[in-house]
């Protein structure tokens, strides 16, 4: 090992440093180099010691928190495929293998295409590659249905990284969550494959065919299934939304488990909660955003329950809003993105609450967009700086009166 590192330091590193042959590619070398070993930099001045964590560690730990969602997503994709195609003798193992062939290509495309943009911008701008991309590259595939054609994955992540992040200046400067920006782009550009009532297809062909050759779901002889949100939104006036969900095969239990059609990572409440617990224990993500988001969702759901509306979706108990669709995934992993969320404590409470409330409002009041969480988070991303502005102004007022009170005492 030491021999290899010495070789790197003596012979490889000079090639990339200033005046070296591959000087331009320095960010790429730096990323690889510091990925294998922490950098040797020392503190430039006071404070002369620093905490041992860095951006790399934080971001990688968020990816760890996403792993339960990925594993359950893989299993779920394979499982549903095998059921819909009536594959005989399907076991957990065959489910996983089948699911991997469907999901992993999407993850790989997301990382490769997204990584290409990240590296390109780092080289052009001459800054280091930011690890925030590791999270974006994993978040994005997890909010896609497993049947999405790979070219759409590539376009979506490109849009998310370039328009959602890089044109603002990279991680730390962006207004919107890049992964959600990419998804929103796909949502509006290619609605058929990502939402609505044709989202989830277990095809008669293999998933490999489906994904690699970009065959659009409805063109082939497959089984289409609506997501719970689409079912609930389509429930007739005066009918019982729970019954409608039940008829379509959705119960509170299987929506919690996650063995239902939906996006790869966001169907299983159990997997999301595992990730959430990990994020809360390590203290990476804001518990304020999560708590206020869930409170907002419950409050708005309960309000709709209480109102005498002639809307089946409105009468759906609020618990369903928590487990259906992408809300929980969104509030745990997307809304807590430290760059695009509110930065002040008070701001975080308002921001989270509004995401929860808006999600339910969009779902119930606007049946055209059954998935309210994505739009709610993006909208509140835009609003976050405004919320913070008012919180900061209030703080300035408070501190002035504090100082004056003590001076007059």
């Amino acid at each position, binding site marked *: *090992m030491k021999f290899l*590192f010495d070789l790197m330091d003596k012979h490889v590193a000079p090639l990339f440093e200033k005046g070296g042959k591959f000087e331009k590619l320095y960010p790429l070398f*730096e990323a690889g180099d*510091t*990925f*294998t*070993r*922490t*950098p*040797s*930099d*020392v*503190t*430039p*001045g*006071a*404070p*002369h*010691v*620093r*905490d*041992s*964590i*860095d*951006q*790399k*560690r*934080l971001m*990688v*730990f968020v990816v760890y928190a996403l792993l339960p969602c990925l594993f359950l997503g893989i299993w779920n994709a394979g499982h549903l495929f095998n059921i819909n195609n009536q594959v005989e003798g399907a076991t957990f193992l065959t489910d996983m293998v089948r699911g991997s062939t469907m999901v992993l290509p999407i993850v790989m495309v997301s990382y490769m295409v997204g990584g290409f943009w990240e590296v390109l911008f780092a080289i052009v701008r001459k800054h*280091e590659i*930011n*690890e925030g991309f590791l999270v974006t590259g994993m978040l994005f595939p997890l909010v896609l249905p497993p049947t999405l054609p790979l070219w759409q994955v590539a376009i979506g992540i490109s849009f998310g990284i370039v328009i959602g992040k890089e044109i603002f*200046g*990279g*991680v*730390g*400067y962006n207004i919107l969550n890049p992964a959600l920006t990419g998804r929103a782009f796909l949502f509006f550009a290619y609605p058929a494959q990502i939402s609505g009532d044709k989202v989830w297809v277990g095809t008669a062909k293999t998933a490999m065919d489906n994904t690699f050759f970009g065959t659009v779901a409805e063109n082939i002889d497959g089984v289409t299934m609506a997501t719970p949100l689409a079912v609930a939104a389509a429930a007739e006036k005066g009918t019982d939304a729970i019954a409608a969900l039940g008829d379509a095969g959705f119960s509170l239990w299987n929506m919690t488990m996650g063995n239902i059609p939906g996006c790869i990572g966001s169907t299983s409440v159990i997997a999301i909660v595992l990730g959430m617990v990990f994020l809360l*224990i*390590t*203290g*990476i993500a804001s518990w304020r955003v999560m708590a206020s988001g869930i409170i907002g969702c419950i409050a708005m759901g309960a309000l709709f329950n209480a109102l005498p509306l002639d809307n089946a979706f409105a009468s759906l108990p609020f618990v369903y809003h928590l487990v259906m669709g992408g809300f929980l995934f969104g509030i745990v992993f997307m809304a807590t993105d*430290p*760059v695009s969320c509110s*930065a*002040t*404590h008070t701001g*975080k409470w308002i921001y989270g609450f509004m995401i929860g409330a808006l999600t339910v409002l969009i779902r119930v009041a606007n049946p055209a967009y059954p998935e309210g969480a994505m739009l709610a988070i993006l909208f509140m991303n835009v609003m976050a700086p405004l919320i*913070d502005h008012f919180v*900061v102004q209030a*703080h*300035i007022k*408070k*501190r002035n009166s*504090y*100082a*004056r009170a*003590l*001076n007059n005492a």
Partner: protein
Amino acid sequence: MKPSEEPVLAEFKIKKGFDVKVTGKPDPTIEDYASPQLFAVYPSEFEGLKPRLKVKAGDRVKRGDILFENKKNEKMLFRSPCGGTIQAINLGARRFPVEILIERAAEEESVTFEAYTRDSVGQLSREQVADHLLNTGLWPLIKQRPFNKIADPEATPKAIFINAASSAPFQADFSLVLKGDEEAFQTGINALAKLTEGKVHLCKSAGADIPDFGNTESHTFSGKHPSGTTSVHINRINPILPHDTVYTIAAQDVILIGKLLNTGELPRTKVVALGGPAVKESSRKYYRVPLGASLVPLFEQSFDGDEVRVILGNVLWGDQVKTDTCVLYYGSEFFVLEEDRSRHLMGWTMPGLFQYSSHRVNLSSLMGLTHRWKLGTSLHGSHRAMVVTGWMDRHQPLNIMTDYLIRAALAHDTDEMVQLGILETAPEDFALAAFVDPHKTDVCTIIKQGLQEIEEEGI
């Protein structure tokens, strides 16, 4: 309410804060240090100073002779800490005299000034006290807020804050320094009291064995670091409003002023604490050192490690000084730690048991309660764009929004900086923010530049 005659006692509990657990605490014993003949004065220590030299290499000087004066205020003089021959004047960039080396003579003569008692100081006017301190070269010990610079003698401070508290590793314990110099301390306080129409606040750490002194209001501060910083004291006792000025001074420097007044000669010694992981255990203690004397013999036998960094001050806030430094004008402690350029395999995923952290992302944070760490200077990462997360505010007891203040400073938005309270602060108040920041932002420098910008533009 009638003002009471008794000294007022106030206790403040600081709730937010963080103690960096590092090894190398100095033993509470004072050793006399026999210095070599080499002495030095560093004009570069005084920020914003434009020195005009009054001596040249080869000149013979007495103890207390003028070495240089401040071009910006010609009353402000700087005097020699020893009698002997000017050995060399080393110039830096733009011919700025970085250091003046003096070889002490075997028999040194001293310049004498007028001597006072603790009571006769009280008869002086404000102008007399200020002029005396300016003339004897001790005025620059007094600093001022806002801007944390050498106090403006013309200002009318609304209060004076004496900092006798300590909370960072390892600030000198003033109760130890004070022993035997109570008389000089009181004289110094009486002189300072002439400089303000307001109060003189004496701020101590809770539990420190420091008696109350006349002419002051005593306050005790308890809690984790930064409960011992002047900014926290000011914020809790008498916050700075725009256009206010307060004077601040370290407690040991008050003793120096008192000794000058009592003896009529420049003070000879002060006490410094030597601590930190790179100091040998037998050398971790307090030393009574002559002002300006070379510390080479002491440092040579005290350090443990190949490449060490010597900090004048504590581990969180202080300037790096040379390993062959002489005793400086400011500061009561040296902290020494190893330059840590080691690289760790895949630091982004290891459990983090052996790396000190205040965040729960590292398992080691669970050991943070009792374990003391042998810390080095590793940055543990590389710089990334700052993200406003509110994390940097986690250990900030001052009533400021740390993240936003830093952002305003980065954006050169002087109005917002002032509104958010930068005038109350000094760069040292951001040391913990920089410590915890995973993006490795150089926060203290950003704030320092922000303060400079405001000073240049005017409030």
